[in-house]
């Protein structure tokens, strides 16, 4: 079991030279308030048990979908098997828009749009994971990079005709009907979720090697074109 720190251990934001980690410049006390909306499904702290969602002790550094006895979505298990590890940056992305990181996650939560609130709640959860100052090489201290997409990328208007052509490459595996026989459907995805997800693969935030490769060679315009096509595909 990982060290459990009392929540009031220190409230000072820890600054790291250069960039800061979301969980380090957050306010743990405010984070505890933010966490109330999570608490109906998730427990954290001493004696925390799984409820609808997994307990969150030691969540930093944990492979997604691996707590015994929790009923995860197929996609969460897949993402875990593909190597999704909960870190500062992946948790931040997941909390911002859960479905954009893990499609069809069972966590029915709209997300926390406010970046400061996410920093706060991550700072609070961090208390119940290994402390970064103890294990500098371990995953929890891995430097996060801001996953927020340049608003100019999100504002790009995609060319759906080009998207249709590009989509033909996706449809070798992702059935246009949206059926999931082992590879999830992507038809009818909200445009913004699609763009965020593809950029997450491109930046290797999402773990799948085929998707990292496929997204890796798509330009911002091409991702926008695909999103514009897939959003209207029934």
């Amino acid at each position, binding site marked *: 079991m990982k060290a459990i720190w009392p929540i009031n251990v220190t409230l000072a934001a820890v600054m790291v030279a250069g960039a800061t980690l979301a969980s380090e410049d957050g306010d743990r006390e405010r984070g505890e308030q933010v966490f109330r909306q999570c608490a109906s499904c998730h427990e954290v702290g001493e004696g925390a048990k799984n409820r609808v969602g997994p307990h969150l002790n030691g969540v930093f550094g944990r492979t997604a979908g691996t707590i015994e006895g929790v009923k995860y979505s197929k996609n969460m298990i897949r993402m875990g*098997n*593909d190597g999704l590890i909960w870190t500062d940056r992946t948790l931040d992305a997941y909390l911002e828009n859960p479905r954009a990181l893990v499609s069809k996650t069972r966590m029915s939560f709209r997300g926390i749009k406010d970046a400061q609130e996410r920093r706060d709640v991550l700072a609070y959860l961090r208390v119940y994971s290994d402390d970064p100052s103890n294990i500098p090489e371990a995953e929890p201290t891995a430097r996060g990079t801001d996953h927020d997409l340049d608003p100019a990328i999100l504002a790009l208007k995609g060319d759906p*005709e080009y998207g249709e052509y590009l989509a033909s490459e996706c449809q070798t*595996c992702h059935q246009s009907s949206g*059926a999931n026989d082992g*590879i999830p459907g992507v038809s009818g995805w909200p445009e913004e979720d699609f763009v965020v997800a593809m950029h997450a693969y491109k930046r290797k935030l999402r773990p799948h090697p*085929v998707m990292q490769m496929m997204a890796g060679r798509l330009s911002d315009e091409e991702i926008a074109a695909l999103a514009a096509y897939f959003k209207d595909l029934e």
Partner: protein
Amino acid sequence: MKLNRRIFLGTGAAAAASLSAPTVFAAGSGKPRVVVVGGGAGGATAARYIAKDSKGEIDVMLIEPSREYYTCFFSNLYLGGLKEMDDLGHSYGGLAAGGVNVVHDWAIGVDRDAKTVALASGGSVPYDKLILSPGIDFVDGAVEGWDLSAQNAMPHAYKGGSQTELLKAQLMAMPEGGTFAMVAPPNPYRCPPGPYERVSMVAHYLKANNPTAKIIVADPKSKFSKQALFQEGWADIYGGMIDWIGQDFGGGNVSVDPVAMTLTIDGEANSVDVCNVIPAMKAGHIAELAGVTEGNWAPVNAADMSSKVDADVYVLGDSANQGDMPKSGFSANSQAKVCANAVRGALTGSRVFPAKFSNTCWSLIDTNNGVKVGATYEATDEKIAKVDGFISATGETAELRKTTYEESEGWYAGITADMFGA
């Protein structure tokens, strides 16, 4: 056989009436015509996409002798007992419903001057653009002692369907402690990991049903696709059952005797119970008849898959010599979409987008133990060139291998829907 163009008198009704056999294709629609030869991963995909995307502006005919298509991909899983033959069969009804004129016949010649394709049943069909996707045929004399007349005694099972069923029947009839032999092909050939997935699936079957049996693989290559992954699995799961004899140990110096059922490797005769001979391959014969091959394969331009010898002929999939892509169903499907977009643009002026190609090959080592390799490609002036790639690692967790296998099932459902229409 080289067809004499003089036997084709044209496409008008009067000309058709003067032939002893009627032309199949009614002339006179005035629409541009695309004829696709071969209804596999390349041809079916190209026909479907051109018909679907041109919305009736192009007449698309697909010439394919089989009424039911059995995929070669996943046929090893049938050998291993993990799939039924019915799981691998697909009808052409979806393509017909999607506007493709599906003609079950053999294309037996191409007259590139007259731009017609001759059919085995008689007559010929005209084209504006011809897409050849005939898969593979075998190089004559590639394995000493073996020719097509021996394919019942020693099946290749490298085209889907009856040959696969034959090999399975022979595997099931092997005596206790018997020997299953494979003669692996030299590069380049269809589905680089295919022979080794087959060895894995045969071992999977034998381990459960005939555990003292042996497998010998005579291979003219010194290394093969996903070798570390396969050999790790063979050692861990089928320890000692599989003897792979590569080029360095005489694996390329083989002959067979289909009557005596022997496989001679580097001068040493082995008595075998099943002998799966996968000979060296070449482009499907119709590509050679069309005069678009150089050596064993048909060279193509990477940007649109057009033949380097005739701008109105395109060659897809296994038959094409295109550069870096492996010969696979996934590659053929990927190339078909680039080609369909280019052909449509040439015939109707629709927008033509830059070529993008990709491939992923999944292989199964044991139940729920899948691995994969893949890459993306781009068109250069010279060839289809690899951009980026990945491969599964040795020592992966059982969970990841299971996810990879499930993903391959998703891919199978996806590509067959993409080829034949859902």
